[in-house]
């Protein structure tokens, strides 16, 4: 349903994306891994049309969104939910208003329905009862979970998670992984997860794609990647750094 073709993006003299080709099938769960600063978040922002590419295409259900205007993009984005790496909560709104943002702007939900769904969503991310708090009063991990609730509450067709478990303790991480899998399977939501966490990669990914030097270097099942003999892949999944990077 989403096809990325030869996507290129340059910031100043840094070629961040250098011809990315990627297909995301309906209903699948894809994990994107890659070095920090490798352009994963930038890739995600291109897929949801937040940043226009220098060249290349992003096809959503056959429609090239790379050059749509903002108003036309809004309709496309209604199908998407996105958890930002920084959570990006609206700091002038309460947790409840953040999570209910889309629902309360759609005007076809009653206030009771909205507050019930917000409570359910908070229950799902294991943070009941924080409705009235402001984002500034939450810890980093809590903000991320509120961001997650905000991204899934309106039942989008595709959810993008940018490092959903970074900064969470292992127990909550595990429950978030399970939540992502549950959302994907029960609601038939297409799931795209960026992560550095090999455990959560194996927990949520049916397919893993590795972004390296601005391209999709390889893709396969988590098991295949973990067992890969390719030096770039195996170094990454085992977390072994280059020797020379330690010499000052």
């Amino acid at each position: 349903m989403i096809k990325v073709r030869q996507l290129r993006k340059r910031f100043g003299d840094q070629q961040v994306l250098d011809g990315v080709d990627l297909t995301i099938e309906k209903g699948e769960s894809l994990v994107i891994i890659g070095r920090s600063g490798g352009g994963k978040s930038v890739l995600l922002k291109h897929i949801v049309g937040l940043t226009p590419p220098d060249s290349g295409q992003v096809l959503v259900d056959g429609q090239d969104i790379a050059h749509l205007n903002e108003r036309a993009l809004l309709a496309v984005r209604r199908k998407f939910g996105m958890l930002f790496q920084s959570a990006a909560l609206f700091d002038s709104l309460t947790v409840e208003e953040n999570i209910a943002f889309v629902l309360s702007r759609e005007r076809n939900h009653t206030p009771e329905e909205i507050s019930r769904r917000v409570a359910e969503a908070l229950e799902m991310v294991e943070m009941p009862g924080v409705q009235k708090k402001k984002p500034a009063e939450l810890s980093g991990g809590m903000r991320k979970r509120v961001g997650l609730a905000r991204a899934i509450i309106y039942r989008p067709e595709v959810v993008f998670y940018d490092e959903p478990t970074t900064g969470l303790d292992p127990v909550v991480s595990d429950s978030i992984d399970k939540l992502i899998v549950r959302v994907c399977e029960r609601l038939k939501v297409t799931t795209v997860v960026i992560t550095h966490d090999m455990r959560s990669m194996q927990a949520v990914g049916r397919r893993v794609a590795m972004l390296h030097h601005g391209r999709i270097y390889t893709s396969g099942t988590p098991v295949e990647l973990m067992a890969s003999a390719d030096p770039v892949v195996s170094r990454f999944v085992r977390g072994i750094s280059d020797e020379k990077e330690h010499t000052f």
Partner: protein
Amino acid sequence: MTEVPTNVIQRVLSGLGRFSLMVAEVLRSLTTQRLSGRDLVDQLHFIGVKSQMVVLVTGAFTGMVLCAQTYFQFHKVKMDTATLAVVSVSMCGELGPVLTALMVAGRVGASMAAQLGTMRVTEQIDALRTLATHPIDYLVVPRVVATMIAVPLLTAESIAVGILAAYLVGVHLLQIDPGYSLVNMQRFTDHRDVLMGFIKSFIFGGIIATTGCYKGIHCGQGAEGVGHATTEAVVYASIAILISNFFLTLLLTRLLALI
């Protein structure tokens, strides 16, 4: 996203281009999208109610100093009772709108730029866009509409307070004859002066909000970017107000002479 501008002219032109696109988008949004009443009221509260102090002080002291200065000059040629007429005409047509707008630009324009700028650097504007909401609809339009409603009202208030303060200073401190003063004031101030002030302040309101929002939305990165945006919002809005005021005076005097 945008090419690196190679020189100042290019930068200015591309800035003006993006600014015009934003204004066009605001107009499109106004005609096609529903404006949220709650957002509008929030903004009106912030702009109107919280600017009271600033506007009252500005209006009162401008009226007072204008009265005193005019009186010192007019007294020499025994035209004491024309003092308040001068105060009222210049407060209505020039000083009221311009000074109120400058004060509001410093307070409201700056905070709009800082607020939207912070939202931009913390990815909140991107988040808004992924939540299928146009930043212009949600952030800019309520601010522009509220400012264009609030600034004329604040201006009227500041003019009224200015004239009142001038009257008190003139009559009680400088011993000008109140009866003749009031008659002269009404004789020389006509509806054109009032209308001119009203139209100007409406336009100034638009300048303040669009500049503040534009600078915020196109703010550079980090705290430094927000700082820059805030300063520039105030500076550009103030300059635009002063320059456009001159041309508006020329234009409106001609136009209003027709009615």
